[in-house]
């Protein structure tokens, strides 16, 4: 099985008419994702590569039964786009957009939690989610991911980094290991979906046998994940934390990747994960090898 999205997921693309939305929406559709609609209030009624464009998410949901949305709207419009998606009735929102103000993120995180408790937001500033062979929403290259094989030992991936996620998918594919779902939670300070949300779902998924986790400096999400793994998880976890040599006080590319006041260091995160029984690699390659060992030993 997969978590959060599968072959039945119907996706509306907010911003399908923009260059990014059109490009990645097209790639997702070619992969097999049910790309059922796009939105743009000024271009309702038009088609993008045969996909119908609606004025609002509500219209798109009513006409197509979409249950997920993917946001490719520029950062200034993201706050409204997230709420529009939730009000429109989808239960899963993937926000790819980078550069969303932290105050907006904190606001819509709490707004969703309060007024739309059944809605899950992934991102912003994330590569999206792929359940290989079933559904790919976002900017991940589908061909580097091997589908999960029923009856074999499959891996789930959760990561704060895009490229490192692709590398993990690729290395597992090279080793012949299938992936149930790969979730990019993104590198921003207030991600809609956390490591713990994904770990919990993977722990409950009978087809996922182990989890690969890729963290980075900043915040305490890895420490919180470690506590969850220690107390609530049976399945083995391998991990890597990027930024062991990052200087304090500097944002390392991602808005959330910053060591401040001595907090959020990679060393502290790696220690917390090790203490929770996680196999922690010193670099992405080593973490991949540890994951392979875990699977091959089973």
């Amino acid at each position, binding site marked *: 099985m997969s978590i959060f999205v599968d072959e039945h997921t119907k996706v509306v693309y907010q911003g399908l008419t923009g260059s990014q939305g059109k490009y990645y929406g097209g790639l997702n559709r070619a992969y097999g994702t049910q790309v059922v609609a796009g939105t743009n209030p000024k271009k309702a009624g038009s088609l993008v590569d045969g996909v119908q464009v609606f004025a609002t998410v509500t219209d798109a949901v009513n006409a197509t039964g979409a249950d997920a949305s993917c946001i490719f709207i520029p950062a200034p419009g993201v706050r409204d786009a997230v709420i529009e998606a939730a009000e429109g009735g989808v239960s899963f929102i993937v926000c790819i957009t980078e550069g969303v103000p932290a105050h907006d993120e904190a*606001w819509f995180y709490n707004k969703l939690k309060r007024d739309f408790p059944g809605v899950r937001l992934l991102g912003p500033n994330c590569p999206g989610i792929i359940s290989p062979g079933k559904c790919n929403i976002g900017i991940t290259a589908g061909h580097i991911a091997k589908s999960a094989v029923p009856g074999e030992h499959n891996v789930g991936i959760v990561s704060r980094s895009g490229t490192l996620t692709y590398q993990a998918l690729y290395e597992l594919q090279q080793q012949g290991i299938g992936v149930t779902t790969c979730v990019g939670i993104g590198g921003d300070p207030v991600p809609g979906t956390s490591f713990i949300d994904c770990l919990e779902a993977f722990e409950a998924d009978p087809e996922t046998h182990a989890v690969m986790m890729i963290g980075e400096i900043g915040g305490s999400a890895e420490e919180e994940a470690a506590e969850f793994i220690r107390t609530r998880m049976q399945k083995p976890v391998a991990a890597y934390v*990027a930024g062991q040599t990052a200087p304090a006080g500097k944002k390392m590319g991602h808005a959330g990747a910053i060591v401040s006041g001595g907090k959020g260091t990679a060393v502290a995160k790696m220690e917390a994960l090790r203490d929770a029984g996680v196999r922690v690699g010193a670099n992405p390659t080593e973490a991949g090898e540890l994951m392979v060992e875990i699977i091959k030993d089973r």
Partner: protein
Amino acid sequence: MDLFEYQGKQLFGRYDIPVSPGEAVTTVDGAVEAAERVGFPVVVKAQVQVGGRGKAGGIKLAANAEECRTHATAILGMDIKGHVVEIVWIERASNIAEEYYASFTLDRSAKRHLGMLSAQGGVEIETVASDSPDAIAKVWIDPVDGLTEDVAREWVAAARLDPAAEDGAVDILLKLYRAYVDGDCDLVEINPLILTPDGKVHALDAKVSLDNNAGFRHEWQEYEATQERDDREQAAHEADLQYVGLDGSVGIIANGAGLAMSTLDVVNQVGGSAANFLDVGGGADATKFVNALSIIDHDPRVRSIFINIFGGITRGEEVANGIVAALGQIDIKSPIVIRLDGTNADEGLAILEPHLGDQLQVAPTMLDAARKAVGLANR
């Protein structure tokens, strides 16, 4: 983006937060003239974005023009922990009865805003937090609700300030929260927030950090212009590259922030050290590589360059073509080691093949490439 104290105070002023009258100046004569207008006694304060100014001699009281001239002469040009003082803030000196601490920031773990208030101000809050954590009253604010007056009042009561300061503190905290939210700040901090002998509460310092992602809805050009960046960071900023300058000898280019961070890690693990962090992003535009390579090659620290690319949707041959085109446009002094993996890596390597030699090498894995690049840097 961090602001100088005087910029923070100007921001506070726009939200009616009481601050001392003052002026920012860049010359000694300007300092004396400003002091005459502000009225003696004044405080001459070095404007640097680093803590510990006072201990370094960057904050001095001046009772008259002569003292102001002496202090401004000493402070302008002073080096405080590697930051050279180019601006001083001249403000009217305050009488202080009590020193408090107040701040708002985003608590990433709670996913809400965190307000901190303490009756023990004027010292580093980290010290208070470790020595007497109970001395900090905290309040978590749901961004949807905002900070209400009732909550602010309870919060101030919990901090056990002097009763004479309570009303003034509530008023300032409500305004400070508005400045924090409307201003898209990562942090607003007043340390010290003072109570004067005549019962007034006001901000004696201002530490403000802005969220660069919110620049689209603010006029921040003035702050942009005064950012402390070294030459490398300035050039990278102008080329719109995600760049952080470091002290090592291996220049780094990677596609993706996570991969760039892990490239620094791997270089370190094989005994080297990186000269920079640089995320060139997705795509394979030759211009981006031209910009990235020239910034890195101009850095006198750099002895070798490690380009670490993982192809996803952007294929290996596209990236290889971009790099080859870039190298055709500029001369690079340092030898380059490329690791190219992922989508169509073999096709990409085939494109690089005819250009390989002492100046341009490839390696099959991140670790191999890091060893090669570090070896070249240490020659």
